[in-house]
């Protein structure tokens, strides 16, 4: 598991170019939040969420932008501000690039989901690590097999689906409104 944890760490945005983006984009977001009478902590919170969303978008296929990354991050930050303070875009003018930015609908998780995740962290952290390495860190099954000490890709595939099944069954068992899943 040590190798697997290392692989997850290595793929997080610690790269030099992400640090450069941090330095390039934060002043713009801080200026915007200050203009909105927000505090340093507001700016930091909004900016960090904007970076997480940008990283997620960047990882997805077909993501291309024709503006500098820091302008896009500022656009995300404006949307997050609108969402946080329940304002309409009439209060904050958005240009056409900014208006087209979509914030993931499930970005702010429900209490139920957070409770479920806490249960899963306690009962099946290893499986969550394996699934996360596979889906979000784009670790190949070959590398996953090596990291987990399996002799073949087939064994790693079976393990991945067994984990998916285990996590799914825990979600079923612990869900507060299990009936919802029948809809």
């Amino acid at each position: 598991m040590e190798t697997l944890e290392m692989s997850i760490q290595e793929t997080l945005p610690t790269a030099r170019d992400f640090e450069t983006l941090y330095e390039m984009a934060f002043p713009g977001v801080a200026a915007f939040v200050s203009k909105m009478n927000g505090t340093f902590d507001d700016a930091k919170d909004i900016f960090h969420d904007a970076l997480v969303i940008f990283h997620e978008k960047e990882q997805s296929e077909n993501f291309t932008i024709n503006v500098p990354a820091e302008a896009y991050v500022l656009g995300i930050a404006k949307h997050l501000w609108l969402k946080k303070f329940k304002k309409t875009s009439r209060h904050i003018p958005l240009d056409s690039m900014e208006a087209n930015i979509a914030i993931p609908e499930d970005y702010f998780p429900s209490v139920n989901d957070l409770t479920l995740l806490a249960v899963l962290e306690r009962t099946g952290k290893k499986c969550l690590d394996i699934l996360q390495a596979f889906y979000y860190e784009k670790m190949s099954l070959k590398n996953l097999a090596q990291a987990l000490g399996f002799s073949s890709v087939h064994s790693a595939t079976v393990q991945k689906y067994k984990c998916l099944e285990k996590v799914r069954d825990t979600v079923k068992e612990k869900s507060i409104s299990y009936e919802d899943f029948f809809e």
Partner: protein
Amino acid sequence: MRTSLNDLRAAEQYILGTMPLDEALVFQARLLTNPTLRCKVNLQRKVYTLLRIRQRRHVKAAVEDMHEQLFADPTKAAFQEQIFSFFNPEKL
């Protein structure tokens, strides 16, 4: 792989949109007529949502570390001052 794992794989392809169209249509028909399968697929969908929340938390923790380092680094004093200048005492 045993049948239940094959079902998980099919559901994954369906949910993530990687299933060929003809197979997806057959799968969709099975979903309409099979409430148990529908429930399992919805639960699986929830698993992906939870993994996404977990992944965002990991990224956010990495961003937080980056923030701590940048604001503790004496060679980044100009950057720190630039940010703090937006939040001078008169504004707070």
